[in-house]
């Protein structure tokens, strides 16, 4: 360890191999971490849509017509 930041970045001439390795490691795991969060939001949004449609149908059954009555 020589102490200077430049030599740390240079990785003894192997910067083009060491840093991409660490970047792949961090980026792949970051993608793995974020993917289920997006999926979770989509699942819950779709479920709320289903619930809203279902409660609209049930209101329709109780007598209050979901569509305007025919003239």
């Amino acid at each position, binding site marked *: *360890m020589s102490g200077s930041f430049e030599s740390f970045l240079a990785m*003894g001439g*192997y910067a083009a191999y060491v840093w991409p*390795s660490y970047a*792949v*490691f961090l980026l792949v795991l970051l993608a*793995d971490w974020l993917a*289920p969060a997006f999926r979770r939001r989509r*699942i819950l949004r779709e479920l*709320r849509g289903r619930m809203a449609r279902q409660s609209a149908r049930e209101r329709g059954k109780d007598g209050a017509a979901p569509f305007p009555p025919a003239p």
Partner: protein
Amino acid sequence: MAKWIPLWLHKLSSPPTFYAFAGKVRPWAIALALILGVIALYGALVLAPPDYQQGDDYRIIFIHVPSAWMSLFIYAVMGVSAFIALVWRIKLAEVVAMESAPIGAAFTFITLVTGSLWGERMWGTWWTWDARLTSELVLLFLYLGVIGLYHSFEDRRQGARAAAFLAIIGIINVPIVHFSVQWWNTLHQGSTVNLFGKSHIATDMLWPLLTMMVATKAYYVASLCGRVRTDLLALEGGKDWVRKIAAAEKSR
């Protein structure tokens, strides 16, 4: 064995209970993974001395080897849960098996890419069809096969059963990857770290490696908790407990 253990396990395998349990475990696991990961990275990139033959290039070992361990460890977890899912038809085991596959595939991919970057300078080639590299590539294809099979069925549980079957057959590949460096004459080196017996590595290189191993294990637990929670929501969409969560998240 105490009577409450099977009872506790039985309760834990019910989706709403496990959803809450995983929600409690997840922040602790990711915090542990991040803290240990930063310590391990500091040890790996700054504190550990350069190798006398490979210079600084050997530092790839600190992510390559823990990722390779995880690629096998996660496959074993996936295989065992797939077996439990097929034999006892426990929904949670199915979900754990299927949601382990993408994480395992991620670690296998990292192993292959970092190994390739390492090999280019040290062996003079990005890739060679040697036993260790080929069996690790087969491992990636097994993971991708499990993921693909799971999603290729209209009925998710039917897909999970087919994929679980593939996962179980593929377990054969795990010892092949592990012992490939002993069974065949490979370009890949033998194991550096031995659980039982002497490791062929200096202490100031060994501790970042082992710390990173624990960090990746903790990361797997955290990621699995998040994925299983999400998948349970998808699988149990018609149930009351999921609908309550959906309604609660809207008002936030």
